[in-house]
């Protein structure tokens, strides 16, 4: 049985905070897509705490919880030569250890 550890830490980011996604290196099982790495965005929702998927992926028996955030990005900040409207955004659910304050 998996011995899940409770996490007493509070989230370091709040809704509205501006962040930059780290550039890597990625974990072996990584939930942060390449196209968002190095891109700036803003936190729109704190999704809650989840057991670290990069450890669950390797049958780890003691897995701590980490904070997950919904982050909004401007499409024009992601893609060079983006030709769609300026208001186009993309939302992604990203774990705290991938985010640094902007």
């Amino acid at each position, binding site marked *: 049985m998996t011995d899940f550890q409770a996490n007493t830490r509070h989230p370091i980011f709040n809704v509205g905070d501006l962040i930059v996604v780290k550039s890597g290196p990625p974990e072996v099982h990584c939930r942060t897509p390449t196209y968002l790495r190095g891109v700036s965005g803003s936190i729109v929702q704190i999704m809650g705490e989840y057991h670290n998927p990069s450890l669950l992926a390797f049958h780890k028996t003691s897995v701590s919880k980490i904070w997950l955030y919904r982050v909004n990005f401007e499409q024009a900040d992601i*893609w060079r030569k983006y030709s769609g409207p300026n208001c186009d955004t993309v939302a992604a659910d990203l774990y705290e250890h991938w985010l640094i304050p902007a």
Partner: protein
Amino acid sequence: MQRKVNDVGGLAGLTINREEHDQTFFEKRVDAMLMLLTSPKVKAFSVDSLRRTIEESTLDDYSKRGYYDKWLYAIRQLLVEKAILSDEEIEQRISLIKHSKR
């Protein structure tokens, strides 16, 4: 930075097959196997490990295998990783079924 085979966001030249079809018997079987193996009572492995295993496949395997084929190969690898079945046991069983059909 090395991209995983599943991390295709923003890559050019990929098309999506939008044709729908009813689930085949094979697909239903694979689905049932995964649901049973990951059910709270059995918990043979996590969905995270299933994803990790699929992401470890070669680009060739990842491209040519269908959705449920990817699941099936991942299930096989994980059952061996967790020592629930051995490669020999699986091969013996495959061979037995192949011969009984002739």
